[in-house]
């Protein structure tokens, strides 16, 4: 069988090769294509190719570019000639990825690879038709040489004032066909000339090996110490942000996410910068520890309670694992150019985030002896994954990932830590529990009314202290300050003064200073002296005897009165109802207003809201002349167009009957075949209104979802949108 097309190639390879193709390009089997033809179509589609090309490193990419600039079919030798010897090793890698395939007469690129690579591949212009004597270039006049120097490394286009009257250099080049006019003002350097001037090579620098990662050495012990400090810190931050939101839930923005103000608040509260605060907020959000509630409040979830009881290693794993795979980029929050991007908001997803992050971490793990220096590290990352689409973001992503890895403790002082290594290789994280400072269960109370927990506190003690003291300083230790306000808070939480003193006595390793004990009992003595409550109505009387009579009156039990002073009772019922009940029982109550005035006279109420009378629905107004004529005009125009459409629909139906219908995949497959064979065919093509017309065409190429072909009917080049091609048939 003759093997020329990519489909033919795919049909010819064995299962192992297909397996490898699918490992590199997982998108090809999602969903699984029905046959080889549709596999080939999918593999040649622009999105899939772009994805595959994104997966290449810089050297592979350069070789692919070199393949794309020479004429098909080509040989290994030709590629080596315009690149480096090392290209020999790369070609099979390209073949494995389905970006290059061997055919009977040499190697070829699948359709569309060139389109995906762009117009001026490697900064080279199109091939010329003319026969060139390239040797003459060496004797080009100086003026021409100057022009060539400008264009040699691309872009190959240059603009001239007027093509009819260019400078002497350009004139010579145009005469010799070393330069081709593109339009009135633009000239272009043909590919052959470019390659010749580049000394027979395609690229200025052939980056066969990645640039070296530079960095500084760190003492291993300090690295681990710094990393475990980071682990402890990030856990504490997560704890704090959640505790804070549990007390003071933040309001989500209408567009979703955490507002700038609330971000600032938590950043100040935790004493960290806003970038870090946004990162922590995203971490707990990804871990499901916080959610945006139905009423747009940002609140900790039930998982937080479970999380609190877990071992540190499990807690850390719970926040670090989602970060590894998320496509959300918290670094975007608060940048000058994306002011409205909010943490927890909908705009943080970026396509290459997870892959860049994975690549950065992989490189960190590979260079475990050094703290990489950002510039060389970024260059290396760029070599490994030259991002075509958003190179700026990629650079920032590298920086952010390094920063975030440090915050998480995956690195310590910039070097990957043993915790990071275990984590990335999916090992058990028990070492975190072992290396974190062991929790303490005691505090030291000092005479300036502060208490110091000289290490992470066990949960129960910390919870009580958080109520009866204000945290003044956080870190490895915690400093609490007791004031009358905090003691009062403890009392409000239902503790008695003696309980607080007992608790402190039990937990403190040092005796409680007298002033603190005095403070607690002093506040406890005063607590609850002033009381506030809700009630609906009150009954008061200057004569306490009458009050006593009312409260003991069995008929008034329904009011469930409570006497709060000799002369005052309160009731949960409305004053109006209370008056009625009292009257029925034979008492003579009078109403009193809020400011203590006696309300007398008949009760005559008024509404609080503004009057809003119902709309009157009656006869329609007679329309004006202008309105009438406009209405007629509208109806006429509408009628005309619907008549035209029904006519068109008839034509379409006829046409459809005459054409064989093919599926989208068949259409593409046939088109590709006809393009290669350069034969004419007939298609059905739907226009803007859905009318299908029958065309005879010569297909030329497919690019970006369109077919460019010569239409026999008009004799002109025309672009056909592929989804609108209803069917194809050979002539």
């Amino acid at each position: 069988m003759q093997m020329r097309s990519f489909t033919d190639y795919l049909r010819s390879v064995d299962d192992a090769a297909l397996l490898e193709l699918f490992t590199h390009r997982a998108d090809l089997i999602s969903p699984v294509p029905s046959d080889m033809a549709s596999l080939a179509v999918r593999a040649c589609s622009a999105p899939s190719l772009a994805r595959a090309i994104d997966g290449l490193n810089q050297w592979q990419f350069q070789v692919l570019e070199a393949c794309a600039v020479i004429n098909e079919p080509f040989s290994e030798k030709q590629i080596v000639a315009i690149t480096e010897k090392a290209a020999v090793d790369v070609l099979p890698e390209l073949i494995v990825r389905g970006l290059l395939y061997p055919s009977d007469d040499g190697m070829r690129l699948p359709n569309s690879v060139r389109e995906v690579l762009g117009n001026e591949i490697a900064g080279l212009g199109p091939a010329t038709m003319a026969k060139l004597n390239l040797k003459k270039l060496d004797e080009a006049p100086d003026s021409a040489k100057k022009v060539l120097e400008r264009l040699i490394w691309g872009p190959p286009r240059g603009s001239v004032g007027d093509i009819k009257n260019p400078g002497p250099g350009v004139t010579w080049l145009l005469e010799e066909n070393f330069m081709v006019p593109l339009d009135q003002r633009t000239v272009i350097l043909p590919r052959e000339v470019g390659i010749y001037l580049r000394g027979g090579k395609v690229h200025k620098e052939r980056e066969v090996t990645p640039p070296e990662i530079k960095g500084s050495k760190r003492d291993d012990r300090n690295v681990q110490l710094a990393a475990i400090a980071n682990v402890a810190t990030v856990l504490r931050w997560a704890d704090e942000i959640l505790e804070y939101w549990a007390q003071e839930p933040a309001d989500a923005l209408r567009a979703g996410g955490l507002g700038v103000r609330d971000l600032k608040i938590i950043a100040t509260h935790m004493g960290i910068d806003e970038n870090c605060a946004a990162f922590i907020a995203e971490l707990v959000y990804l871990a499901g520890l916080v959610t945006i509630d139905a009423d747009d409040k940002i609140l900790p979830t039930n998982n937080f309670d479970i999380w609190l009881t877990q071992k540190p290693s499990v807690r850390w794993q719970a926040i670090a694992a989602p970060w590894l795979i998320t496509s959300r980029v918290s670094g975007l929050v608060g940048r000058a150019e994306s002011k409205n991007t909010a943490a927890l908001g909908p705009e943080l997803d970026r396509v290459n985030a997870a892959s860049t992050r994975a690549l950065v971490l992989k490189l960190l793990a590979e260079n475990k002896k050094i703290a990489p220096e950002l510039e060389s590290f970024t260059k290396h990352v760029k070599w490994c994954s030259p991002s075509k689409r958003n190179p700026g973001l990629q650079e920032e992503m590298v920086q952010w990932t390094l920063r975030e890895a440090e915050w998480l403790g995956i690195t310590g002082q910039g070097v990957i830590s043993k915790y990071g290594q275990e984590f990335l290789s999916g090992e058990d994280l028990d070492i975190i529990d072992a290396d974190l400072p062991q929790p303490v269960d005691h505090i030291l109370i000092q005479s300036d009314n502060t208490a110091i927990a000289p290490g992470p506190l066990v949960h129960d003690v910390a919870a009580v202290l958080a109520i009866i003291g204000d945290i003044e300083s956080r870190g490895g230790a915690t400093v609490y300050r007791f004031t009358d306000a905090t003691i009062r808070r403890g009392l409000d939480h239902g503790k008695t003064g003696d309980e607080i003193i007992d608790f402190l006595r039990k937990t403190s390793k040092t005796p409680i200073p007298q002033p603190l004990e005095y403070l607690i009992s002093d506040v406890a003595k005063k607590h609850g002296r002033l009381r506030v409550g809700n009630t609906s109505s009150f009954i008061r009387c200057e004569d306490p005897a009458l009050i006593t009579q009312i409260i003991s009156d069995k008929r008034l039990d329904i009011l469930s009165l409570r006497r709060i002073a000799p002369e005052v009772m309160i009731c949960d019922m409305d004053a109006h109802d209370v008056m009625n009940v009292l009257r029925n029982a034979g008492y003579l109550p009078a109403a009193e207003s809020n400011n203590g005035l006696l309300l007398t006279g008949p009760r005559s109420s008024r509404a609080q809201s503004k009057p809003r009378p119902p709309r009157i629905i009656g006869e329609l107004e007679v329309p004006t002349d202008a309105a009438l004529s406009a209405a007629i005009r509208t109806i006429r125009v509408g009628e005309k167009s619907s008549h035209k459409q029904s006519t068109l629909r008839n034509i379409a139906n006829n046409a459809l009957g005459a054409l064989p219908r093919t599926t989208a995949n068949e259409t593409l497959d046939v088109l590709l075949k006809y393009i290669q064979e350069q034969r004419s065919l007939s298609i059905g093509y739907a226009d803007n209104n859905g009318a299908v017309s029958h065309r005879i065409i010569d297909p030329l190429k497919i690019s970006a979802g369109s077919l460019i072909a010569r239409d026999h009917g008009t004799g002109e080049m025309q672009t056909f949108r592929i989804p609108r091609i209803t069917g194809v048939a050979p002539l």
Partner: protein
Amino acid sequence: MTDGPLIVQSDKTLLLDIDHAMSTECRRAIAPFAELERSPEHIHTYRLTNLGLWNARAAGHDAEMVIDTLIKYSRYAVPHSILVDVAETMSRYGRLRLEADPIHGLILVTTDTAVLEEVIRAKKIAPLLGVRIDNETIAVHPSQRGQIKQSLLRLGWPAEDFAGYVDGQAHEIALKQTDWKIRPYQELAAEGFWHGGSGVVVLPCGAGKTIVGAAAMAHAKATTLILVTNTVAARQWREELLKRTTLNEDEIGEYSGAKKEIRPVTIATYQVMTKKKDGVYAHLDLFDTHDWGLIIYDEVHLLPAPIFRFTADIQSRRRLGLTATLVREDGMEGEVFSLIGPKRFDVPWKEIESQGYIAPAQCVEVRVNLSETERLSYATAEPEERYRFCATTRTKRNVVESLVAHHAGEQILVIGQYIDQLDELSEVLGVPLIKGETPVKEREVLFNKFRSGEISCLVVSKVANFSIDLPDATIAIQVSGAFGSRQEEAQRLGRILRPKSDGRSATFYSVVSRDTIDQDFAQNRQRFLAEQGYAYKIIDADDVFQGKL
């Protein structure tokens, strides 16, 4: 994880466990760069501040040494962000240098042109600069030396001052240690100052700051200008200098409201220096009349603004600031740093107490209840009158009477803010009163009588807050104060901290009205001392009446 005595917190505070075996060693190691914030009984709190770190740079320590120290003594791993921050902050110091230049006088030189470009564009800096000499150098008018240092500090680019000091007119001064010996910490303080060039020495009241001043003068061996708070203090300085140094009476002059002597060693009061005549400070010229080799600022925490301004102009002279508390309620600590100099020496009060150089003291807060009628009048008093009202309540008088009776036979000072209250107390107790209008002569007579034991009790107003040397006073009773001033409280306690001949401990009573603004102020006033480890025992007035002390 090590088992060090230090815990480095993420808010840049350092907690030092003083019961730890290595605590003394660690305290010495961190003292050059961390500011002691609190020193109660178990855990001392230090803080890493920009000023402190720049101080350390000025004293020749680098970031690496700071980081190594933190890591070495830290119990837990040190947060990375702190280390980065330390390195960051310290690297800002010294990018700009002030140097003497034979042609331009004074120049600002940089190693980092970007920084220079940044600062010369700052609004506050531009007017202080002269001609641009080259990319890295710009001329500064010598008289702006202080101003520019102050402004650069505010911008966060403190300049290292290499311009040096003038020696001043030489004058032989030496310590005369015949019947006494300079204490080790005093010597350390004087040396710390001398090696640093200029700066502030912080020592508790009663710890002998005058001797530090005298030792500094003995180092300088040059004419000296000493600025003190008031005339009584000036006389005390004079006597102390006569006793401790080789100076004789003719060499020491007093420049005050009463006398205007200018001698090789001149003691001037802040009051006369800041006195205005026809809208100008007539006496500020004193700074220029002599080629002073050393200027000493006593009680530098009280330094008034005009002196600050003038100090800015004399940056080429050595300056020594002395104080017990660098806390300024007006937050001008930065000014002190840039104009007088960085803190050169600091030591916890309790440490000096344990060495026996200051008397141990007990602080007691006596809470009195307002009577029912007083409570009613307090509740309805105008806000600005409230403090005065509750601070001068009658009940306090009874408490003071009981306390004085209880401590009969000891030397007692009753200190207050409001003159009416003090007049009344002096009458009730039958003891003399010293207030602002008491002539200096009479004051001296009374103080001398008190020292000799002829009088055992004195009522004093705020004039006796500072610098009054009353060695045998053992009891101080404070009835009212300048609102919530922390340093006033410390100064007042200082009055009774001179070591007693019989090794007795002192007691400081603060009488406070319960549940009033007086109590809130008292809490703030006590903060500094509580942080120094002076625990206030709180008792009720009834305990005093029943003699349960």
